[in-house]
């Protein structure tokens, strides 16, 4: 298979992008397990507690 210089450059670019992506944001690490959950009762209590004081 004959490749043009342009095609070769593009292939190198794509490979580099893949490497950089893997290096900076590994797939395994970015798919975090979501353990946080909205706590509506705690939120209501915070409103009542914090809104009871002025914004000084």
């Amino acid at each position, binding site marked *: 298979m004959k490749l043009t210089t342009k095609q070769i450059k593009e292939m190198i670019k794509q490979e580099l992008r893949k490497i*950089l*992506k893997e290096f*900076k*944001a*590994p797939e395994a*690490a*970015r798919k*975090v*397990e*979501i*353990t*946080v*959950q*909205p*706590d*509506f009762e*705690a*939120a*209501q*209590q*915070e*409103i*009542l507690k*914090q*809104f*009871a*004081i*002025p*914004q*000084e």
Partner: protein
Amino acid sequence: MKFEEFKKTYKPEQIIKLAGKIENYDGSIKDFIDKVTSDRNTGTLLRGIVKALMLFTGGNVASVRDPEKFDPEKSKQFDLSRVGRMLDNYASQSPIKDDYQISNYILKILAQSKAKKPWNATQELYRGLHSLSANAFLALCKPGTVYSLGEIISTSISAAVATNFVNDKPRYQLVYTLDNTKIKKGIYTAGRTSAYAHEEEVVLGGKIKITGFRMIPTYNDISPFEYPGPYHDEIKDFDKLMEYVQLIENFVEDKKVRVGEVTVYAEVLP
């Protein structure tokens, strides 16, 4: 005046009407005071309203919210409002429990009322929250949720007041932008009636409904991200916010690190 006597003498409509005039009176405030106090009955009502707003902004707020918490020692120190200084010595006398009961009664009425107020007090109101747990923070941002504010709370027409309140406080922080355009609720207190005029407060009560939020992440060094570098885009999607908060929880131990600027939009309910 004793609390029970005050309650029997003045109807809520009278309180709302007179309270709405103080900050909105076009002429000089001295003329207004002279005019109102020329009638003994109305004069007593004015003193009650002025003292209520003064104690809420410059007195023992806990006792205004719950007069059973009245403590004569703690009540000795309070700051005067401009009208409070101009009225006869009633306003500047050390408050007694009846004053706090009257203040509580008046403010509960005014917080739910549509008392006359300047145009900007019927637009967006601001209130900050800070030092929130991740889960409370998420719930406070969740669109569609309805929260009770309590009976008497302080908001401001100045976004800067709310922002300064949360600045330099631990995570998570947010500023509520409350849309008051439909209901136009509450009582405005500032230059004439507040002990802290610069806070430009609207005293409010009742419920709010969360309508949306936006977060601008500001922390630049969290790794790994979904894509390299910091989040540049605003987060407006709740699932995305959950993901971001999870990353913060997993990787940022220092609670004082600023992780984002959060505005939560809510509507003031009737």
